[in-house]
């Protein structure tokens, strides 16, 4: 599968927030650890709702977490 054009800063944000684990973030967002791992790795673009939930956990705006990269 081609990686999505959406990049994210979830990994950095997790480490800035007390080295939060994927498991913990996934639980707070309502997705599995595997899904969060896929989002971080750019293998899955989350729904708008999940994107907002992730941003809310870190207390930042959605566009500070997700960035739309150049289209190929």
């Amino acid at each position, binding site marked *: *599968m081609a990686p999505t054009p959406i990049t994210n800063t979830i990994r950095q944000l997790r480490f800035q927030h007390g080295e939060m684990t994927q498991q913990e973030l996934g639980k707070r967002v309502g997705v599995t650890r595997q899904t969060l791992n896929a989002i971080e790795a750019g293998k899955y673009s989350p729904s708008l709702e999940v994107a907002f939930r992730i941003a809310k956990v870190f207390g930042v705006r959605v566009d500070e977490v997700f960035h739309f990269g150049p289209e190929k």
Partner: protein
Amino acid sequence: MSFREKTAWVTLCAIVIVTLMYWFHIGSLFEPHSPGRVAHSLGASLVAFLLIELVAYFVLRLRNPEDAGEPKDERERLIDLKAMRIAYYVFVVCALLGIFVALHVVNAGAGAVATTVMLAYMAAEVVRHSARIVFYRRGV
């Protein structure tokens, strides 16, 4: 590997094993079979499939109690839907081709048509669970 990916592997293996057992037992697709023999083979295959699934599911659940208790999230639901869509096309194409071959090429009876449709269903299930595994591994 996630709990659901493991269950996809288990179901895929169970389908392949049981289907092979069935075909080994029933013999050639287009040979006339007595209804009793077909029903016996089908029943035995179904029981074998359920047994494999149940035992494997409980073993996996005991080994991954946290993952097993979690409801499916949006990615897992999307994977299921995409895999189902691919399997649907496989089922339709295989069933139609099989029926055409059974009726117009080898002039087989209604029993062979029913067996062909069941074979198409098995092929679709194999494709569905294979697709789930691919989507879990490579992304969706």
